[in-house]
C-alpha cells in the first residue's frame, strides 16, 4: 500500500510537469487551432534565459517575471516574423515550420550552453511536505500549475480579449468582420503560450535539471495529456496530465513493468480516443457539411 501511495504521489508530481506544458499547448491551440511542436523547446530556451539572469546575480522572482515577459515578447516576435509568412500555406507546411523551430531552438541552445546539466533554483523552501513522498518543490510546482490554469480559464471565459482570441481562431473571416484584429490575436496567443511555457520550464527544471533535451520527453506526454483531456479545455488538459502521470507510474511499477511503458501508453491513448474521440473533457467538434 505504501508503495502504491508513493507511486501515485510521484505520478502526481510528474503529472504536474506534463500538465504545465499541456497548458501551453492548450493556449496555442485555443489561439491558432494548431499544435505547436516547438512549445517544449521554446520553454526550455526561455528557462535557460532565466538561468543566465539568475547566474548574473538577479534575485529569483525578478528573474522569473522578467523571463516571463521576455518569453511573451519572443512568442509574439516568432508569430509575426516566422509564422506569418506561411499563414496561408497548407496546415502541414506550418507543422514543418514548427518542427524546424524545434530543431533550431534545441540545437542553438546546446551550442550556446553546452549539454552539461545545470542546476536551477527552486523558489520553494526545501522542506519535505508529505514526508518523503513529495518534495516541497514538486508540491509548489503543482500549485503554480493550478494557479496558471485558473488564470487561463478565467481569461478565456470571462474577458473580452479571451473571447476575441477564441473567435479569431475558430472563424477568422467572421472575426474580421466584427472588427477583431486577427493577426494580432494570433501573435498574442503565441506570446501567452510562450509565457506559460516559460513558467512550465522554470517549474520543471529544478526537478529534472536544466539541459537542452529537458523538454523532449515531456512533450509527448504533454501532447497526450492535452488531447486525452480535451485540447480546448484547460481543466481537461491538466486533469489529463495528472492522469497520464499517475497511470504511467502505477502501470509501470505494478502491471507491465518499465520495458513496455510506452507501448501501454499507446494502447491507452488509442483506447481513450476510440471511446471519447475528443478527449474526456473536450467539446465534440461539429463540422458543417
Amino acid at each position: 500500500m505504501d508503495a502504491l501511495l508513493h507511486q501515485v504521489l510521484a505520478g502526481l508530481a510528474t503529472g504536474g510537469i506534463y500538465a504545465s506544458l499541456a497548458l501551453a499547448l492548450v493556449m496555442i491551440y485555443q489561439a491558432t487551432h494548431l499544435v505547436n511542436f516547438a512549445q517544449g523547446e521554446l520553454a526550455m530556451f526561455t528557462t535557460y534565459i532565466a538561468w543566465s539572469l539568475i547566474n548574473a546575480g538577479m534575485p529569483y522572482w525578478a528573474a522569473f517575471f522578467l523571463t516571463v515577459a521576455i518569453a511573451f515578447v519572443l512568442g509574439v516576435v516568432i508569430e509575426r516574423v516566422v509564422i506569418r509568412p506561411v499563414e496561408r500555406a497548407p496546415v502541414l507546411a506550418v507543422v514543418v515550420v514548427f518542427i524546424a523551430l524545434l530543431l533550431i531552438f534545441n540545437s542553438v541552445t546546446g551550442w550556446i550552453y553546452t549539454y552539461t546539466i545545470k542546476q536551477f533554483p527552486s523558489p520553494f523552501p526545501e522542506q519535505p511536505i508529505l514526508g518523503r513522498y513529495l518534495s516541497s518543490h514538486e508540491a509548489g510546482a503543482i500549485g503554480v500549475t493550478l494557479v496558471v490554469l485558473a488564470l487561463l480559464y478565467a481569461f478565456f471565459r470571462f474577458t473580452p480579449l479571451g473571447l476575441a482570441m477564441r473567435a479569431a481562431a475558430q472563424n477568422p473571416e467572421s472575426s474580421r468582420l466584427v472588427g477583431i484584429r486577427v493577426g494580432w490575436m494570433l501573435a498574442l496567443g503565441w506570446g501567452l503560450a510562450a509565457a506559460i511555457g516559460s513558467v512550465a520550464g522554470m517549474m520543471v527544471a529544478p526537478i529534472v535539471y536544466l539541459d537542452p533535451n529537458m523538454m523532449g520527453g515531456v512533450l509527448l506526454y504533454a501532447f497526450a495529456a492535452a488531447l486525452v483531456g480535451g485540447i480546448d479545455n484547460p481543466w481537461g488538459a491538466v486533469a489529463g496530465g495528472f492522469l497520464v502521470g499517475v497511470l504511467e507510474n502505477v502501470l509501470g511499477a505494478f502491471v507491465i513493468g518499465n520495458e513496455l511503458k510506452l507501448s501501454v501508453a499507446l494502447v491507452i491513448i488509442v483506447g481513450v480516443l476510440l471511446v471519447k474521440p475528443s478527449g474526456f473533457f473536450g467539446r465534440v467538434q461539429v463540422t458543417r457539411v
Partner: protein
Amino acid sequence: MKLLMVGVMAAALAAPAMAQKKYDPGANDREIKVGNTNPYSGPASAYGQIGKAIAAYFKMVNDQGGVNGRKINFISYDDGYSPPKTVEMARKLVEQDEVLFLFQTLGTPSNTAIHKYMNAKKVPQLFVATGASKWNDPKHFHWTMGWQPNYHTEGMIYAKHILQTKPDAKIAVLYQNDDYGKDYLKGMEDGLGAKASSMIVAKASYEVTDPTIDSQIVQLQASGANVFFQATTPKFAAQAIRKVYDIGWKPVHYLNNVSISVGSVLTPAGLEKSVGIITAGYLKEHSDPRWANDANMNKWRAFMKKYMPEGNLDDSFNVYGYAVGQTLVAALKQCGDNLTRENVMRQAASLKKVQIDTLLPGITIDTSPTDYAPIEAVQLQRFDGKRWDLFGDVMAGQ
C-alpha cells in the same frame, strides 16, 4: 676509383637505414588524415562534445609541430547516433576522403553497423568510443580496437566487491534501456555468477526520452533492496542520486564511472546527498581537490584555456577526449615513417605502459596482439562529500 666506390658504399652502409617512408591512402609527408563520426545532432548530441575536445587536442598537437613532423587532419562527420548515417559517413571517410583510419567513432550500435565493413576493407577502426565488450576480439576482428574500460568488466568489478563486502546483499539495479545500460547489468549478473538471480531483487530500466526516473527509484526502494547500482548517463544519474536521498533510502550505492563528475553530476545532485557512493574510475577530474595542483592535470587545464576556452572544465568528456587523443598520438609516434594501415594497427597493439596526463595514477595504456583492451584497470573510489577517495588496489577486471 675503387677507393671512391668503396667509400661511397661504406657511406651508404653507415648511413642510418633511411626509414623507408611507407604510406597507405590518407598519409603522406605532410599530414595524416584521421576520420571520425560523432553525434553532433540528435538525442545523443551531448556526446558530440568528445569530438569537439578531440579536434581541439589535435589542433594543439599540430601547433606544437604535429606527429613526427606531420599534421593531423581530423575529419569528423555527424551521424546523429543513427547507424545508417554512421555507415554512410564511414564509407564517405574511407572511400571518398580516403582517411588512413577511423578513430573514436562513437556509439555501440554505430560501431556495430560498420564493424564488418571496416574489417573487410582492412581499415583500422581504432579506439572506438564505446565500452561494449565486443571490441576486444583481435582473432576475428583484427582491425577494431576499443579504448575505455568496458562496461561489462566494470559491472563485474562491482559484483565482486559486493560479494566480498556484503555477501547477503539484496541488490536493485537501475539501467538505461540500451546497449550501454544492459552491458553493465550483464556484467553485474555475470560477476555474481550463480547467485545473480537470488541477489538481484529488482531491476528497473528507463528510456533516454523519459523526463524523470522517480517512479523507477520508488519501485526499487519498495523491493527492500539494501544495495543499489545505477548504470545511468549524467542527467539521470543526478536525478537518481538526489531521489534516493530524498526518499530516505540508504543503500550501499554504486555508480557507473561515466557519471561520476563532481562538477556536473554530484554538485547538481547535492554533494551531501552523494556521500558514500562507490565507483570504479579511471579518469582524473577537474573539481576533485586532489588534482587541484597536479602537474599533469594543469597541462590539461592549460590546454582547455587556450584551445577550448568556452568549454566546461567540469565536463568529463573534455578530460576523456584529451586522454584518447594523447593515446592516438602515442601510437602514431611509434609508427614513425611507416604509416601503413597495417603498421598503425600493429603499433596500436604494442603500447606498453603509456602514461596519459588525465588518467588516474597507476592506470596506463597497455595493448598486445592478443589484448585489444588499452585500459583494463580501474580504481575503486568512494565519495566523501568533497572528493573521490581511492581505496583498495587498482583492479584489472578479469
